[in-house]
């Protein structure tokens, strides 16, 4: 891989690039699916190619090819330079990159059991064991639709730039995805999507206990269907479970604090941000709200050691004690803001330019047990998980519709409620947090951004949190 990347960079420089980088990337993946007990196709993907990014006269060009023939690599490097040059006449602010240390490294995410070596039979056995655990007798609910997926990927990247960085990285990922539909006569249907994923080998699946995870989810669906009542409406106290805390941190803190959105670079697609350049240091939430994005969490789904601009990853504290503290930067936005990159540039394939992405975004825990969070609420709702959610493209108006949710009565969890709706503004939400739990859990997700779309693996998470006097109901 190194000789291909080096060839691309050298050719780009010869063609007139002021800066050049190349990434040779190989992705190999397999997906197995059991649909209502019968097998869907075993599918696999194999991708190998090179992406070349250049800056010429302050203009950025990117070109990719999945031919690794020397002539084709040279041609792609020339195309990147030529198109960047042509665009220079319509550039108002020349693109610059913040200076960063160059690295030479060879890193791998830890993998004890190579998933690629696990037999198809063993993988199907896992899915079959889940299917068995979902029998109505065991979970006490009818599940007319059960889609069970096991997905593994291995990504190998070789990054090389004209400043001397030379980095090889290897990340295995493993995912279990459950799509369950529960049904109860006279009560309708209810649907749940549950995603477990880590940057690890097959050992992760062995630790998850997939049949138990699936059975728990199914029993929950049955209970909500059978016993769920209409949720209360109006101003109320809420406790949000880790899954809901996590999606909130991702959607209304991580995204709006991506510096490329703040600068308008995603304006036509993923949108801009309610956060403006002068809002660093401004209060956006209560003193209990600290939100961190950390790509270095071991085994995490969003794990990486270096980003796709060759910058070494580190945790980023986005909101500290309720105050906007740090933005997510790549080298381009860091130069614009006069800071260093914090290694947020990620690309999901050889043919995608690196753009600013989250890694693993979560709320920092404090010291409340769940019982203590609930104990202080006379009448409220505990929203443990969600199904429907969305947020506007400035990341200000958001909505989360509870899936597993319960009435809180005199500090105790009571009857399930169906589809409680939290529709709230970002400062309205963060400003109402008055206590944060101590047990952190993470959920896996695929975050969409960029054009063409790049689905990036991330974790979202945090502890349960309590928010006071918030409007429930759409």
């Amino acid at each position, binding site marked *: 891989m190194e000789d291909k990347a080096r060839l691309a960079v050298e050719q780009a420089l010869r063609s007139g690039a002021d800066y050049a980088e190349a990434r040779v990337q190989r992705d190999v993946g397999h997906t197995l699916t059991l649909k209502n007990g019968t097998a869907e*196709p075993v599918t696999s*993907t*194999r991708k190998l190619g090179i992406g070349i990014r250049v800056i010429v006269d302050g203009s950025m060009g990117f070109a990719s090819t999945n031919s690794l023939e020397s002539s084709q690599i040279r041609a792609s490097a020339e195309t990147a330079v030529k198109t960047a040059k042509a665009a220079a006449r319509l550039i108002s602010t020349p693109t610059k990159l913040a200076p960063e240390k160059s690295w030479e490294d060879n890193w791998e995410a830890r993998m004890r059991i190579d998933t690629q070596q696990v037999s198809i039979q063993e993988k199907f056995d896992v899915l079959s064991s889940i299917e068995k655990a979902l029998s109505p007798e065991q979970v006490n609910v009818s599940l007319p639709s059960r889609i069970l997926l096991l997905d593994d990927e291995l990504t190998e990247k070789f990054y090389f730039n004209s400043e001397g960085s030379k980095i090889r990285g290897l990340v295995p990922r493993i995912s279990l995805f459950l799509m369950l539909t529960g049904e109860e006569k006279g009560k309708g249907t209810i649907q749940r999507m549950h995603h477990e994923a880590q940057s690890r080998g097959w050992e992760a699946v062995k630790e998850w206990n997939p049949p138990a995870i699936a059975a728990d989810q199914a029993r929950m669906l049955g209970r909500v269907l059978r016993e769920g009542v209409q949720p209360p409406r109006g101003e109320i106290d809420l406790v949000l479970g880790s899954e809901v805390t996590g999606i909130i941190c991702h959607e209304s803190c991580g995204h709006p604090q991506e510096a490329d959105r703040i600068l308008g670079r995603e304006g036509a697609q993923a949108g801009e941000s309610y956060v403006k350049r002068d809002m660093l240091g401004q209060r956006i939430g209560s003193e209990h709200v600290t939100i961190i994005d950390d790509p270095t969490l071991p085994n995490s789904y969003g794990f990486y050691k270096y980003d796709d601009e060759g910058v070494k990853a580190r945790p980023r504290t986005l909101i500290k004690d309720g105050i906007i503290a740090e933005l997510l930067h790549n080298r381009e936005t860091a130069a614009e803001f006069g800071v260093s990159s914090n290694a947020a540039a990620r690309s999901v394939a050889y043919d995608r330019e690196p753009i600013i992405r989250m890694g693993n975004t979560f709320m920092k825990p404090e010291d409340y047990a769940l019982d203590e969070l609930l104990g202080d609420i006379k009448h409220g709702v505990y929203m443990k998980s969600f199904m429907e959610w969305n947020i506007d493209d400035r990341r200000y108006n958001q909505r989360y519709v509870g899936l597993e949710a319960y009435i809180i009565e005199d500090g105790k969890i009571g009857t399930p409620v169906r589809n409680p709706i939290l529709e709230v503004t970002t400062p309205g939400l963060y400003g109402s947090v008055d206590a944060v739990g101590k047990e952190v859990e993470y959920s896996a997700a695929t975050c969409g951004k960029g054009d063409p779309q790049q689905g990036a693996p991330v974790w979202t998470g945090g502890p349960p949190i309590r928010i006071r006097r918030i409007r429930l109901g759409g």
Partner: protein
Amino acid sequence: MNRILSASKKLGVKSAAVGFTRSRDQMVRFSNNSITVVNSWQTEVSTVYLVSNGKRAACRIEEQDGAEFESVVKELADSMKVTPRGDVDFGLPKGPFTYSDVEGTYDKRLAEIDTGLIDAAENAINSARKEGAQRVSGVVVSGSWEHFVITSAGAEGSSKGTGIEITVRAFATDDATGQGISIATNLSRFDPGAAGATAGTIAKRARGATAGKSGKYSIVLGPAIFADLIDRVADSASAYTVDLGFSFFQDSLGKKVASEKLTLHDNGRLPNGPGSIALDDEGYPTGETHLITKGTLENYLHTSYTAAKYNARLTGSAQFEAGVAGMIPAPRNLIVEPGDQRFENLLDKAQTGLYITNNWYTRFQNYQTGDFSTICRDGVFEIKNGKLGNPVKGLRVSDNMIRILQSIEALSNERHWIRWWEVPTPTLTPYVLVRDVGITASK
């Protein structure tokens, strides 16, 4: 391709479909009236889909050098040996078939890599600014492709096409925005200036928006938001989605699922259609499929697998999808039949309500029931006394898909092609008046 086919035959696989696509694309992205990056892609992709004794396997190979196709086929065939038996035994469509090019889908000028995309971006930016935009963002992309399919059932054919499209987003202020789109298969039908002007006009009109209020409204949906909803309708009309249990058209064939005003079809052979192609990925000729006729659900889209399972005829809708199913039925060009109203008549019929130009982030609470919400994006305007009124913001459509489809009261005679980041399938759609739509707002 023949090598892959022979390898699968040698390994005892009953049916195989092999695909190959060669494409060249270029994309110019811009924001704040300035180009941010130019992307150029050159890609060759091979696909293999195997079917044997009710079992299936598939592989997407995006790798030109060193890909050992025979070993990939062997790996797939081996995986089928231990795969639990599927629920239907079926074969691929029996060829040979005759294919003919679809009219107006290839423009030599677009097959060249340098197609003046930078000029198109500049044209769109200038047009939007002329209408009142302060800042303009967007993306313009063009490309050409050739696609080949050969199957063990005797189908063999190819198709080629070109395309160019632009999405322009104009900002009159940070939260007064508008979007315009132009999409075509040839340069002469492409109009980036018009897309820029539309975006700029909406953005300027959206200045000074006040917070909207929750309630039930008569809504005029612009082509962009209705195209997004129609894309969800087509997803639900895919037999694959039905089979998964994630369709709001479950057990709905022959039933009234929408107002009599709505007629929707998919056409893979539409002349000048941005999604047109001569054959599907199982080698079956593409064609027109009536999905909803005067409110009644007529057909699902099918692959050979779903057609066998639901005892239906093929629709030429098979598209290779490496993620889960290998082959899924999916639409090519979605066409909503026009109504007989002018846009102004729709406002007049609504009298009081909202005109929503665009949306994003559509998510379902339950795919079977169709309960969902989606966020209004870009200009949203009050309708007062049958005329456009003041801009409003911060609103969300929170309703049910079937209820919305059944509450369509009128459609415009004017239609627009839509495809953009949120709407992957090219969709030709009018403006639409819908009654009693649930609208919510954050606090």
